[in-house]
């Protein structure tokens, strides 16, 4: 079997220097053809050289031992790592159970903490005999052999009838150690393994490793910090897989993504589904910059991402998971995000009818909010009764067009949004004002200009109390708290009457 698990190209550790050293010394290596020949054959040359290039050059011994580390041959008598026989996946194989564990202290693999070795034993389809704790070869789920010859871990597979004995002690009869898992999480904190904390130590195995095993990477350190296989993430389903500019590892309950600028963060559940649907790290959302966080209202959750200048996926059970990105995201953030008036997105971003702009719905106050963006107008939020009035007037495609501001406080205690109307983004021609006393009504065109000229909502006319209406032939009238304005449409002349 060939090891196919990839490693991150740009590790958050010290390997770049080591790799550079290897590059510089490649001419020297060329002269040592037997080792070069071996290296060319092995599938793990990159990571092995990164681990110990100087050791390889200066230490006498076989090329295999120098590159592959301590006790890594079949003849060493130790058991293979599960990651070696499971394509980089560091977990017990199906048909096995955890039979016990030991630890090596102060391990570099675990960033200086203890490293735990978990023995995975084959289940038995028959019983044990003669007082032995191990069943015969005919009723095991694996056969005794050696690790793959193309690998740096050729240790024994399913051969050693030995049990450490702290886990699954309800099972008295097992097969041999099939393979071993390594973790930086104490095994008694992983409920699925059913281990006691009875401690066994063997520091002689401290340097045992295999391609695909984590070596104090940012992802592994993060995984350990959240509880490793005992956490909601559960056990690994993949090795650490290299991505453009980062890496990720899959677990039963989620994924951890890492990149240099964003750090390591987990994504899981519906948010992960939405993230994947949008192309994950290669899509507009980029890498996560937070792990999943609880929403301020306690009802939902979210992750932030670094794509599109910053983006977020939120989730709530009744709404599902939706991304917010780009300028719509900026507007949402400026208004307080989940703590603000817009609340949760109710859909993904959608294309406007003119095929130019974008918009997105939000829960808002009473389920009534949206943010609208176009290259000319930017992104602005409309919500509540102002939005209802705007939609009643046709929304983006109506007489008011796209919003040019989000909702703002108006003189006199009300609120307003400005809209393009029949004007331009630099010269808005429509406003919707709302107050508790008057409701939400639009003011637009020359009537709006006349109203603004006498102080707008803070002037004697105050707030509009109705929508503009026909007032005889060729005339339009808007009523306000303090009077009305009549427009002679042919001439554009307006007349203000105070009442």
């Amino acid at each position, binding site marked *: 079997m060939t090891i196919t698990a990839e490693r991150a190209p740009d590790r958050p550790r010290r390997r770049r220097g080591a790799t550079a050293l290897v590059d510089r010394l490649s001419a020297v290596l060329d002269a040592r053809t037997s080792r070069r020949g071996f290296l060319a054959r092995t599938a793990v040359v990159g990571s092995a050289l990164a681990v110990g290039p100087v050791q390889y050059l200066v230490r006498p011994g076989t090329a295999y031992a120098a590159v592959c580390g301590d006790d890594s041959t079949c003849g060493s008598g130790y058991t293979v790592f599960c990651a070696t026989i499971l394509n980089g996946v560091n977990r017990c194989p199906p048909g096995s159970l955890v039979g016990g564990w030991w630890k090596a202290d102060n391990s570099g693999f675990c960033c200086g903490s203890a490293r735990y070795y978990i023995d995975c034993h084959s289940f038995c389809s028959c019983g044990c005999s*003669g007082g032995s704790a191990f069943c015969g070869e005919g009723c095991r789920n694996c056969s005794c052999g050696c690790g793959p010859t193309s690998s740096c871990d050729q240790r024994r597979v399913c051969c050693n009838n030995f049990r450490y004995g702290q886990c699954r002690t309800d099972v008295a009869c097992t097969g041999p150690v099939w393979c071993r898992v390594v973790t930086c999480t104490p095994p008694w904190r992983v409920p699925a393994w059913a281990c006691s*904390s009875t401690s066994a130590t*063997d520091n002689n195995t401290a340097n045992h490793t295999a391609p695909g095993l984590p070596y104090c990477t940012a992802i592994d350190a993060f995984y350990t910090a959240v509880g490793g296989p005992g956490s909601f993430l559960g056990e690994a389903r993949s090795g650490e897989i290299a991505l453009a500019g980062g890496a990720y590892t899959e677990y039963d309950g989620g994924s951890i993504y890492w990149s240099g600028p964003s750090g390591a963060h987990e994504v899981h559940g519906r948010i992960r589904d939405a993230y994947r649907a949008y192309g994950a790290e290669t899509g507009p959302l980029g890498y996560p910059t937070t792990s999943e966080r609880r929403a301020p209202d306690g009802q939902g959750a979210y992750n932030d991402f670094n794509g599109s200048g910053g983006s977020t996926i939120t989730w709530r059970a009744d709404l599902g998971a939706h991304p917010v990105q780009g300028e719509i995201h900026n507007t949402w953030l400026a208004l307080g995000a989940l703590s603000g008036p817009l609340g949760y997105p109710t859909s993904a971003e959608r294309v406007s009818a003119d095929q130019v702009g974008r918009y997105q719905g939000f829960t808002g106050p009473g389920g009534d909010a949206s943010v609208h963006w176009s290259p000319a107008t930017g992104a602005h939020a409309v919500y509540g009764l102002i939005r209802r009035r705007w939609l009643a007037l046709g929304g983006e495609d109506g007489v008011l067009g796209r919003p040019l501001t989000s909702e703002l406080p108006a003189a006199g205690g009300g609120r307003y949004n400005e809209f393009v109307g029949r004007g331009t983004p630099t010269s808005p021609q429509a406003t919707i004002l709302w107050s508790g006393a008057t409701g939400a009504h639009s003011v637009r065109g020359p009537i709006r200009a006349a109203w603004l000229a006498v102080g707008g909502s803070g002037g004697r006319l105050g707030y509009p109390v109705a929508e503009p209406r026909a007032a005889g032939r060729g005339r339009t009238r808007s009523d306000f708290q303090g009077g009305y304005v009549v427009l002679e449409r042919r001439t554009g002349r307006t007349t203000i009457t105070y009442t």
Partner: protein
Amino acid sequence: MKVRAQGMALSPEPGWEVRIRVRPADPGAADGRPRPVLHAATVPLPEGRGDFGGGVTALLGPEDVFLTLFEYDPAASTTALFATRGRPTPIPPDFSPSQLQRTLPGQSGRQWFFREGGRAFCLYVVLGSHARRVPLVRRAAALLATLDLDPGDGS
């Protein structure tokens, strides 16, 4: 001379080195109580040995024997793995080259899980030569015949 500590005692003949040490509990472990491990070998016991013979078994010659008596949390004594009451008496047919924590050429081993006096143990014996298992097992059995285990206090 009798070697006694932690409720374990052995009276080794000359040629044996016996050590009993307390394994520190891991920080944060629910069962925070340290447990002992007894090591006996016919070779010098290195300081950096593993609890089940790591660093020792590679030193065994064909006339050598190593054994570990490893104590578990007493709660384990009620489980299926530790159902056997009382310590075992090793006999040569028990041993096999495949019953080793680390399989080294020529060697042979066997482990027994058992309970005694409310305590849970694993006895693990490694012979330097499977071919010479008859005299080597006799030698190990003679040492184990001197083993005293105090009853546990339930903690």
